[in-house]
């Protein structure tokens, strides 16, 4: 049983993508930080375990879990039916919107307006799946391995349109104010949860319990607000008990 293994090792290995500001990133002093990182830190502290961050990429999050490179994944991981087939999820601890962002000057209101344009997305993310579904035939997608590289591509003017989370648009505007990226339309709102290997009910229950407590006491909301500048959506907070 995995919970026993973790408890025995006094250490929990959490896979986090450190290239997705503000979820996971390095600060100026090169310390890991971000909402996912603080969530993981809080979890480890509450469970009385040492935290080992396993750096991962968007596409590698689930393989890492499957091949035991990490015990759990806290890495802006949205709950999707495809993923539920191969891994288990905890109850949601945060929410994330999949949006299409572009500079203010561009006139885009729906997927149809993307016709003939170049859109950036990050391989293996829900954003990628959503945009692939709705994109007009004559538009192209350029995919990168992680959000950071995608952001680099936008910031360095490789492309202008980005299928992503709203918070990443904020990051781009900080780095390259001339871009004036804004949300053009929302594709979907996803629940973020902790990813676990299948068939570990004890660990899952333990984490679910922890999420409920911390949603109730507002600690998770505080972390979210600190990095994303908004409160958690109500669909998430209602799980607090």
């Amino acid at each position: 049983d995995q919970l026993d293994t973790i408890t025995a090792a006094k250490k929990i290995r959490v896979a986090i993508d450190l290239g997705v500001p503000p979820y996971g990133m390095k600060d100026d002093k090169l310390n890991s930080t971000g909402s996912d990182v603080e969530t993981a830190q809080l979890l480890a502290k509450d469970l009385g375990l040492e935290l080992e961050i396993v750096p991962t990429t968007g596409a590698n999050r689930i393989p890492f879990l499957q091949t035991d490179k990490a015990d759990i994944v806290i890495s802006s991981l949205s709950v999707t039916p495809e993923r539920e087939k191969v891994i288990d999820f905890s109850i949601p601890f945060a929410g994330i919107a999949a949006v299409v962002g572009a500079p203010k000057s561009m006139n885009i209101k729906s997927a149809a307006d993307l016709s003939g344009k170049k859109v950036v997305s990050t391989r293996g993310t829900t954003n990628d799946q959503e945009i692939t579904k709705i994109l007009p035939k004559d538009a192209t997608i350029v995919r990168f391995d992680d959000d950071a590289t995608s952001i680099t591509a936008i910031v360095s003017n490789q492309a202008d349109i980005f299928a992503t989370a709203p918070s990443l648009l904020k990051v781009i505007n900080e780095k390259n104010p001339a871009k004036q990226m804004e949300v053009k339309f929302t594709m979907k709102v996803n629940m973020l949860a902790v990813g676990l290997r299948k068939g570990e009910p004890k660990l899952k229950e333990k984490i679910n319990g922890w999420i409920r407590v911390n949603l109730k006491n507002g600690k998770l909301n505080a972390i979210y607000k600190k990095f994303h500048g908004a409160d958690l959506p109500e669909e998430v907070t209602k799980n607090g008990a």
Partner: protein
Amino acid sequence: MTHEQLTYLLLGAVGTLELSVLTFIAGGLAGLGMALARISPVRGVRVAAAAWIQVVQGTPLLVLMGLCFYGPNIIGIGSVPALVAAALAMTIYSSAFLGEIWRGCIQSVHKSQWEAAECIGLTRWQRMAKVVLPQALRIATPPTVGFMVQIIKNTSIASLVIGFAELSYNAKVLNNSTFQPFIYFGCAALLYFAMCYPLSRWSRTLERKLNATRG
């Protein structure tokens, strides 16, 4: 670039060197085995070694990395650390290339040397160890040093699948929080150059010396 960032880049260079040295030792041993297998008196061994080399040389390092990273887990060995997976992939890769380089060097030692050693009554292994390999070593040094450059450069691929923290990976991480690709990738390129260029030069000097003493 801040002091921390520079340290971080240099730390990456250390990671690169670590992986390179590990690869060179393990890959060198495997390559020697492969070279010997390629000229083994047993046909089966020769064929197997040739097939191994053909297959490895036809596979991108990126795919080898993936196989070595996920493979041990799949076949039940358990999870391996990134450094081990990367070193394993690089070792497999080097075994094929060094094996071929060294086989060529061993075979370029003239057949009459083998015969002369045979006529004094040396066993096959004594002939190899005392007569052929010492001579092959001299010929093999320049291309081997040249291949070390390949190893150092190719460690950069370890970051793509495995996320092993070497120089390219750290440069990317830095870029990901600052978005100044010119600076960080430029610095990384310079650091790689600083590691590789002396080896390239050395290899060329060795080669010139070898040609001079031969001609």
